[in-house]
C-alpha cells in the first residue's frame, strides 16, 4: 500500500504530464491546420502534372524508347527504397507504420534476389532501419531545417539527388515509401514507384477528340524537362502529406494521452481519498481505544 505522500506525488506528476500532452495536442492541432492547407494548396499542381505526364506517356506508347526516367534501364536488379518519416517522435504509430511498410518492401525485394539500397528522409525512419539494414544505407535527408511547410527546396534537392544517382546507374527502380494522408484519423503507409516514372492510374485522361498533339520543342525534349520535375513534385507532395500526417497522428496520440492521464488522475485520487479516510479511521480507533483503556 503506497503512503499518502507517494500518492500525492504520483497525482502531481501525472497532472503535469497531462498539461504537457494537452499542450502538445493543441500545438499539433494548430500545425496540422497549416500543414493541411499547404498540402491542399499544392494538390492542383500535382494533379495537373500527373494528367500532363499521363497524356505524354500515353502518346509515347509502350516501349517506344523515350527518356530513361520513363522507360527505365531495362533492368530490374537494383532497387532504391526511399523511406519518408518524421523528424520527431511522440506521434503514435506514425513512424512505425511507415517503417513496417518499408521493411515489408525491402524484405520482399531481398527475397526476390534484388540488390536494395536505402535512402531515408526524416530521422525516425533512419534510427529504426539502421539497426537492421545499416549496410544498405546510401544516404539520409534531414528535414529538421524545414520551416513553415515549405518543402520546395528540400524536395527539389532530394529529387535531383535521386535523378542524379539514377543517371549514374546506381539503381534501376526507385520506390518511395511514405505515409499518405487520407484524413485526420487515417494515414496509410504507401509504397509508390518513382522511377521509372509512372502516371497514376486514376489520373484524368483527356479526350483529344481525334486530334493530334503538337509539341514545341519536340516531345522528347519536353519529356526530358518534365520528368525530373514530375519526380520532384511527387516527392514534395509526399513530404507535405507526410508532414500533415505526422501532425494529425501526434494530435490524436496526444489526445489519447491526455485522456489516459485524466483517467489515471481519477483513479489515483480515489485511492488517495480512500487511504486518507482509512488513516483517519485508524487514528480515531487508536484515540478511542486509548481513552477506553484509561
Amino acid at each position, binding site marked *: 500500500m503506497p503512503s499518502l505522500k507517494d500518492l500525492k506525488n504520483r497525482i502531481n506528476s501525472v497532472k503535469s504530464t497531462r498539461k504537457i500532452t494537452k499542450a502538445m495536442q493543441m500545438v499539433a492541432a494548430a500545425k496540422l491546420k497549416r500543414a493541411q492547407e499547404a498540402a491542399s494548396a499544392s494538390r*492542383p499542381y500535382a494533379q*495537373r502534372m500527373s494528367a*500532363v505526364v499521363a497524356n505524354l506517356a500515353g502518346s509515347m506508347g509502350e516501349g517506344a524508347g523515350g527518356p530513361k526516367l520513363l522507360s527505365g534501364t531495362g533492368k530490374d536488379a537494383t532497387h532504391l527504397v526511399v523511406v519518408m518519416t518524421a523528424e520527431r517522435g511522440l506521434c503514435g504509430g506514425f513512424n512505425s507504420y511507415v517503417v513496417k511498410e518499408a521493411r515489408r518492401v525491402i524484405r520482399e525485394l531481398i527475397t526476390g534476389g534484388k540488390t536494395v539500397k536505402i535512402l531515408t528522409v526524416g530521422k525516425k525512419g533512419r534510427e529504426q532501419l539502421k539497426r537492421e539494414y545499416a549496410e544498405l544505407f546510401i544516404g539520409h535527408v534531414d528535414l529538421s531545417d524545414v520551416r513553415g511547410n515549405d518543402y*520546395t527546396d528540400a524536395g527539389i534537392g532530394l529529387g535531383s539527388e535521386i535523378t542524379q544517382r539514377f543517371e549514374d546507374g546506381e539503381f534501376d527502380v526507385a520506390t518511395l515509401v511514405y505515409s499518405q494522408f487520407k484524413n485526420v484519423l487515417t494515414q496509410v503507409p504507401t509504397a509508390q514507384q518513382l522511377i521509372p516514372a509512372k502516371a497514376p492510374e486514376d489520373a484524368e485522361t483527356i*479526350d*483529344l477528340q481525334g486530334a493530334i498533339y503538337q*509539341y514545341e520543342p519536340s516531345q522528347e525534349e519536353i519529356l526530358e524537362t518534365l520528368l525530373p520535375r514530375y519526380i520532384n513534385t511527387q516527392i514534395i507532395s509526399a513530404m507535405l502529406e507526410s508532414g500533415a500526417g505526422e501532425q494529425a497522428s501526434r494530435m490524436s496520440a496526444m489526445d489519447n494521452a491526455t485522456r489516459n492521464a485524466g483517467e489515471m488522475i481519477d483513479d489515483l485520487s480515489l485511492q488517495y481519498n480512500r487511504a486518507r479516510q482509512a488513516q483517519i479511521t485508524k487514528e480515531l480507533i487508536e484515540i478511542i481505544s486509548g481513552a477506553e483503556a484509561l
Partner: protein
Amino acid sequence: MAEKLHFSLVSPAKELFSGEVDHVIAPGTEGEFGVLVNHAPFMSTLKNGVVRVLEGDRTTMRLFVRGGFADVTPAGLTILAEEAVDLASVNVADVDAELEEAKTKLLSEGKDSPHHGALQAHVDYLSDLKAAVVH
C-alpha cells in the same frame, strides 16, 4: 461572346487562376503564342516571362511565370509554372531588395558552390521579374 477558353495557372505553391477567359498569350521557349478557345492540342515549355490574359482586346491580368509548361487540350489551357506571381500584386521596391540580396548571396557563395546554379537561376528570375514590372 460565344464560347470561352478555360484557363488555369497553377504553381506548386497554389492555384493562381482558374476560370473562363477569351484569350491567353503565353511566353513559349520557341516564341510567344496565343491560345483561343478550340485551339488544337498543343504542348510547349515556357521561358521566364509574362502570361497575359485578355478579355476581348483588353488585357485583364498579367502574371509573371518562371519556366514551366503549357498544355492545351480540348478542355482548355493549363499552365504549370515553377513559380508564378500576379504582377498587380508585385511591388518594384520589394523585387529590387530581393534582387540585391540574391546577388550578394550569389557573389558570396562563389562559383564552385553546389547552390551556384540555383542562385543564378533565382537572380535571373528576379531581374526578369523586375523588367516585367517596370515595363
